[in-house]
């Protein structure tokens, strides 16, 4: 992962929940304008790792994070950093689409409003439209923008959540199994969307689907029992992995 500029850099990261250590000395660079996939069995620490990248762990009881996490060379675990501002820069999309029980418009407008990104209503309209276009949802919702976000289908709701995340101009987009609740068509739409989004954003995705990682990601990192076992170019990981644990996992041999 040395060939392009790291957007985020993680060094010697340890994470514990109370006395149970979940991550052990993780070192990983997240390269700019690429998609990095985090794979590994349930409980391996990949979601914990993802949540460290925008300090979502701050709100989890008993969670202690040690080590260095940098965004563009500046540490994000600093008392002077406002986590809310950080999370606008490093947005997140979850496994289950979770639109606010508000209109489609308000779902997308919420972030720009609280961050004061628009001075006038027409500026806000503009941000909402642009975000929905970038999330590939605009054509499907432009005539029903005042309908409730929860009235959309699962795949549309997930794209609404992506629109909501990108409405505040993030630099990095974290995705925690964004397609696991979606059908294959909706999944294909999101994957296609991710490929477009990476021109503008740096993306980190946690996925249980090896095929999805192989399809969308330029880089893949394999986690196992709290350790980062192997990282590298996706194609290499899926054809000739170096570590036996990686191989056993991706070929379905884990005992």
């Amino acid at each position, binding site marked *: 992962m040395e060939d392009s500029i790291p957007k985020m850099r993680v060094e010697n990261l340890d994470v514990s929940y109370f006395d149970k250590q979940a991550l052990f000395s993780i070192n990983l660079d997240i390269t700019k304008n690429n998609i990095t996939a985090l794979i590994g069995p349930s409980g391996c620490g990949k979601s914990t790792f993802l949540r460290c990248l925008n300090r979502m762990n701050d709100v989890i009881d008993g969670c202690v994070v040690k080590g260095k996490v940098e965004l563009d060379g500046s540490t994000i675990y600093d008392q002077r950093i406002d986590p809310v501002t950080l999370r606008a820069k490093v947005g997140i999309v979850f496994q289950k689409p979770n639109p606010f029980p508000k209109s489609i418009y308000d779902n997308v407008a919420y972030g720009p409003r609280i961050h004061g990104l628009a001075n006038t209503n027409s500026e806000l309209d503009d941000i909402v439209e642009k975000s929905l276009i970038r999330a590939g949802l605009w054509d499907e919702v432009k005539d029903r923008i005042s309908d409730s976000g929860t009235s959309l289908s699962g795949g549309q709701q997930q794209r609404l959540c992506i629109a909501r995340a990108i409405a505040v101009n993030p630099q990095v987009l974290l995705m925690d199994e964004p397609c696991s609740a979606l059908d294959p068509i909706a999944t294909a739409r999101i994957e296609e969307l991710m490929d477009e989004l990476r021109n503008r954003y740096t993306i980190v995705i946690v996925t249980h689907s*090896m*095929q999805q990682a*192989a399809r969308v990601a330029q880089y893949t990192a394999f986690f196992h029992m709290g350790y980062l076992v192997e990282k590298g170019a996706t194609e290499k990981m*899926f*054809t*000739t*992995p*170096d*570590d*036996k644990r*990686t*191989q*056993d996992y*991706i*070929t*379905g*041999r*884990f*005992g």
Partner: protein
Amino acid sequence: MSLEDNNQEHIVRSYSEELNLLTSTVVRMGGITESQLNLSIKAIENLDVSKADLAIKSDLELDNFEKEIEGLVTRLFVLRQPMAVDLRNVMAALKISSDLERIGDYAKNIAIRSKSITDDKVLPIMEGLVSMGTLASECLRNVLDGYQALDSEAALEAWRKDEEIDKLYTNVFVEVVNFMEKNSGSVNSGTHLAFIGKNIERIGDLTTNIAEEIYFMVRGERLTDDRPKADKTATITSNEVIND
């Protein structure tokens, strides 16, 4: 991560079974190819028509094997989406079966040509072709043993030996051309001999392809060295041959 270190079964047992079936089918196909090649060599050694007919007949069997392997591979891709070693394994099976089928075609062609040679005068030249064929058959056997044993070194050794086949071919080619220069009535038989030599040389090349596929399957890295080559026949002119 090489294939030799891979001893664990898949969680889904039927997946392992399907992969094992694929490998054993390739091994069986390899066995048939080898005996077909041996029959063709026997056919030219003694101009034995019955051996030639057997070699010609077994080609159909190889075609069926190739189709069977194609079916197994398609099924594995669709149902299992193989990754890493498994992916390399399946890819190798597909490519090796197609190389074996081509070897079978050449062996069949050798057998057919052996039936068209009616001229006893060519028999002394035949010796060179038989040595070539025997060596090609030996290489094929070693490569196939390497496939079964996941032994990339054995495959590599056979890969290197192809140079000897090329050298023999160059010699045989010169002999054949000399022979035709001296015996103008034997051009028909002589031409068949030249083609038989070419066929064996191609069989050697296909065998090295198989060796390369095995190497990648086992090691996960490509053979990057240039293979030693000693086939000079393409540059031989008539004058050189006569002065040889």
